[in-house]
């Protein structure tokens, strides 16, 4: 038979990666409607299924001019799914979905325009970490620079929210602004208008997306993930506070100034100027050791660690602190803003409190608190009466006054049981750090200070942190004098935050104890143990 002549027209291929509920389907439908109105043949497919509930999903479109179909004399045969290496436009409604598109090979340097929103919707694994589990966004952007012909990334979610709309509208705008499809701005906007729902807000979001893409740089900049410290202020509100600021400037190296400033501010806010001065004393004692043991060459790691960790330790979260934070005027304003309350609307908050006997004892004078804690009859009685969930309506007078009074107890804080417990624990911790620093275990001392990071939370969470912290401190003592002690302790600290049940930490501690007596003669094989429970 005669050779078949193959037609050279090929469709435009578009993949949209979104999470269920993000409106990926709306965006796909818009593109289809626009293309059909402009005389194109359009096909879209998707795999909704259960992915409609928050899971990652993909919409795929192909567009071909109808004129080409007429010329060919038959309807086009369009693919039902994207083929790696054969996609012209990839739109991702969240940054990690852009990463997923690249993993699937949908983005190619020769032809693919990749438009992604930079906002993050964290996955459960990222959110549930005991510490910071958030993935590095720049890994995706770096890969995108390599993988895409053109990479565009903006926070299209924020644009949509600013416009009072949803992300499908700002994504549609970015597609238009990028000039990634052969349709004019009017065609896009007409499609939105034709939809007839929330048109004005959608058009605003569209315009924001359009402008961002139209003015996008050739290659997007990296996202800033650095945390900024406020600079140590020049002037404080009172001479007493100013004296502390001056003392920081005079007695401490500049590398530690900002963190010390933050610490001072926290402790004045938490207690009073004297308490802040006490904080500086503590830091100063460690700074002396820092100077004696080569801190200058270590960028004053010991002093900086002390500045941060001592401030947090001293401002432990007790009942008084919580009551104080909950009753502040600034907090009332923040809540109104966060829930988006308008003028004329009233906002009342309800707090979910669950006081335990420990907290009550902690808020009593030391002797009384200890007695109550030990008393089976009175303590037990109180435990049964008091320990239950309480819904505290902070906006009503009764509850506000109650919390306000509790917050007012701060002037007695130093005499209360909790303070004695906290102080004793801090002393032991700091003594250990000092001892290690003095004996030349500088890096290990710094690590010991940072270990305090795992003591956080309330009630059971706090108890768990306390227990693991105690294990770490024991381990630190064992590690004293060992060459790799600081790194080992850092690894243990990571393990302590690896899982809730503490399996990773137990495994590593077990390893440490097993290896200790015979480190010299037994071949070391613990390499993979630390990830066993990850």
């Amino acid at each position, binding site marked *: 038979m005669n050779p*078949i002549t*193959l*037609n050279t027209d090929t*469709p435009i291929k578009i993949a949209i990666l979104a999470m*269920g509920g993000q409106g990926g389907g709306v965006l796909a439908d818009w593109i289809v409607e626009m293309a059909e109105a402009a005389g194109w043949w*359009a*096909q879209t*497919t998707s*795999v*909704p*299924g259960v992915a409609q*509930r928050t*899971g990652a999903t993909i919409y795929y479109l192909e567009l071909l001019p109808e004129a*080409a179909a007429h010329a*060919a*004399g*038959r309807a*086009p045969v369009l693919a039902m*799914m*994207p*083929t*790696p290496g054969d996609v012209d436009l990839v739109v991702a409604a969240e940054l*990690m979905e852009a*990463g997923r598109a*690249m993993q699937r*090979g949908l983005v*190619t340097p020769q032809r693919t325009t990749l438009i992604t929103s930079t906002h993050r919707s*964290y996955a459960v*694994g*990222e959110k*549930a970490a005991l*510490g910071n589990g958030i993935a590095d966004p720049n*890994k995706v952007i770096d890969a995108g620079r*390599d993988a895409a012909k053109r990479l565009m990334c903006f926070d299209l979610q924020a644009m949509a929210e600013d416009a009072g709309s949803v992300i499908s509208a700002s994504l549609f705008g970015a597609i238009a602004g990028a000039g990634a499809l052969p349709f004019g701005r009017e065609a896009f906007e007409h499609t939105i208008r034709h939809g007839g729902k929330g048109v004005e807000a959608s058009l605003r979001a569209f315009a924001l997306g359009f402008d961002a893409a139209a003015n996008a740089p050739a290659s997007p900049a990296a996202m800033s993930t650095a945390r900024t410290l406020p600079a140590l202020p020049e002037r404080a*509100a*009172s001479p007493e506070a100013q004296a502390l600021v001056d003392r920081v400037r005079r007695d401490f190296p500049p590398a530690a100034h900002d963190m010390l*400033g933050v610490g*001072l501010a926290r402790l004045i806010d938490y207690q009073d*100027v004297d308490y802040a001065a006490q904080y500086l004393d503590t830091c100063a004692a460690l700074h002396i050791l820092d100077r004696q043991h080569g801190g200058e060459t270590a960028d004053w790691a010991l002093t900086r660690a002390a500045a941060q960790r001592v401030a947090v330790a001293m401002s432990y979260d007790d009942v008084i602190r919580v009551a104080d*934070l*909950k009753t*502040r*005027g600034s*907090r009332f304003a923040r*809540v109104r803003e966060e829930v988006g309350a308008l003028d004329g609307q*009233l906002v*009342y*908050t*309800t707090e*979910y409190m*669950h006081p335990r006997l420990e907290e009550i004892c902690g808020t009593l004078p030391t002797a009384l608190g200890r007695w109550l804690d030990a008393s089976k009859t009175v303590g037990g009685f109180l435990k049964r009466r008091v320990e239950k*969930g309480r819904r505290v309506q902070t*906006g009503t007078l009764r509850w506000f006054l109650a919390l306000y009074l509790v917050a007012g107890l701060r002037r007695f804080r130093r005499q209360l049981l909790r303070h004695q417990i906290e102080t004793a624990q801090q002393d032991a911790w700091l003594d250990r750090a000092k001892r290690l620093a003095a004996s030349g275990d500088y890096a290990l001392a710094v690590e010991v200070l940072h270990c305090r990071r795992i003591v*956080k*939370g*309330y*009630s*059971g*969470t706090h108890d768990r942190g306390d227990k693991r912290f105690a294990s770490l401190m024991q381990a630190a003592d064992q590690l004293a004098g060992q060459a790799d002690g600081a790194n080992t302790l850092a690894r243990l600290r990571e393990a302590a935050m690896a899982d*809730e049940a503490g399996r990773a930490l137990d495994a590593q501690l077990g390893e440490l104890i097993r290896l200790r007596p015979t480190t010299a003669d037994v071949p070391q094989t613990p390499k993979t143990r630390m990830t066993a429970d990850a």
Partner: protein
Amino acid sequence: MAERSFKKEVQQLRIPAGEEFRGEGILAITKALLQSGVGYVGGYQGSPISHLMDVLADANEILEELGVHFETSASEATAAAMLAASVMYPIRGAVTWKSTVGTNVASDALANLASGGVTGGALVIIGEDYGEGSSIMQERSHAFAMKSQMWLLDPRPNLESIVQSVEDGFELSEASNTPVMLQVRIRSCHVHGRFITKENKRPAFTLAEAMAHPVRDTGRIVLPPASFGHEHEKIEHRWPAAVRFIRERKLNEFFDGDITDVGLILQGGLYNGVIRSLQLLGLADAFGNSRIPMYVMNVTYPVIDDEVVQFCEGKRAVLLLEEGQPDYIEQNLHAILRKAVVATHLSGKDVLPMAGEYTTAAMRNGIEAFLKAQAPMLLVTHPAVDADEMARKGKAATVPLNFHPRIKDLANVVPARPAGFCVGCPERPIFAAMKLVEQDLGAHHVSCDIGCHLFSILPPFNLGATTMGYGLGAASSSAFNVKSGKRAISVMGDGGFWHNGLTSGIANAVFNKHDGVIIIVDNFYSSATGGQDIPSSRADNPRRATQNPIEHAIRGAGVKWLRVIDRTYDVARMRDTLEEALTTPEGGPKVIIAQSECMLNKQRRVKPQIAKAVKAGTRVVKERFGVDPDVCTGDHACIRLSGCPSLSVKDSGDPLKDDPVAHVDSNCVGCGNCGEVAEAAVLCPSFYRADIIHNPTGLDRFMARIRQTVIRFLQTRRATRLARHAL
């Protein structure tokens, strides 16, 4: 009320003959049913044909106008049994479900139906839930067609072919007295395309006529001796009749190419992907013109021997593209060619994957491998292949970039994102409570079921050991009915309960004195499939009898220990009830019905009402949750017990706090779960509920004024004192 409304789209079902229809696959199938003069339709929802059921429900008015009866069947077995109406009467009937799971459930009725045979056309539209987006075990419906000898259609995935297949299916069924299965893949159900319509037809023979003039013929009933006769009838009459019809009506398609010594045989559903694969190899274009001839099997069972032989004769080699396993068609083709003594080489799963979805990339690679072996000249002349060769030698990177180290590295960054519980889902607190019970009483064996509640097996809950099928949660615990320190827990949804769980789970547990705990999640809908109504739905549905409490059914089945929790968000009560069920000395099944409305449906229901009330000036209190970032310490225990999508994390904004703090985003619907969990688990006081009073009354404003006067005075006093020494 289903999740997605097709009220607007179904108007397309009315468009007159000869006009162009544009829309989604499921809508086109509905139109095709009407064009075929279908008399009744039934089915059970489930992806990918959930929306087909929703379309039918929304099109009820149009169906009634045409005299078509539509039923939401209680299960796929019910739907399949419904086809009994076509056994004795010349009425066309169609049913639909998710396959293979639905076909599993239906297979008893299907086997009986196929044995006795049909008079009116009987069409089973199966949504083949296979490959990406699937939520079930990866199997083929093909086996059911083979075992019961029903014909299986797998049309090319464009609306015109699918619509034609529906019409052909009915005729084939009538011509061969055999039920026909029409298979549509996930993407075909949702593909947007076009076709030219025909007139809708009223059924030629109605159900009412049948009921007025009943007919019976014992020869059609599956009972000896007729049942033995059926088998012979299948082979001697129905099969040949089907083959004749398929050949005469050219249901399978031959596409010519200019290369004559090789060819492709493929399932119709793979056609578009095969064309794209050939296009990528430079052997076809975007309009289906292919240089390699193709034999497209729009009917994948039975295989038409003569057509296969005719296509293969004179060719050196052919490649069969058959998705899924076992490779039934490939085995069949080998037998056909051998028996016909045709020497053509047959390739198939030797160059294509035995298991898994046939993506374009997989088929492209398979075809390439086949051509390399059989007709290498076709490949080497093409620039795409040259480019490929270059890439292999490291000169150009035209192949996908996912081997690039940076992109490989993304595996450490890009999180898996499986589907999970929605914002405010009432099932989340049930599993949070279960986690808390686990802390108190240790881990228990948990048998899961099909439904949204199955998301409990994922992080952060990590609960559940097995899932044995829809409604079989309780049944799958039945072996654990021996003396032990711990009882087994089973979970079942309301959808599964009505599907079969009442008998397979509850009645079975009562009868066998099962000493275990069964939780029934009653969220008022069949939620996982798109929020369709079920017997216990609370909504007033004018076409269905709803509001039949599960509790009544369970008591009727003989359950003595029963607790109904009418607000699942009460985590403490949920936990206590569960602990009681696990520890009570009472024997027999301990059943807990946990009720709260599916939040997705609730929001859709109440949001417009609330907006309307606010607009009308009525006092409305909206609730939202929040976290005080200065109180939160960033341990995220709350997230590990909740997993709500709106409960996320953000930078603390506090240089002293390294870890991000919990944060409730604006999608919060105020269900209260996070606060309840924080309280029940004694976590922390960071959560607050904000009640936002819209359109406050005079009394509200008066009280607020008094409160604010005092509160602001005290706040200002303290703030001033704090500011005195501030940095």
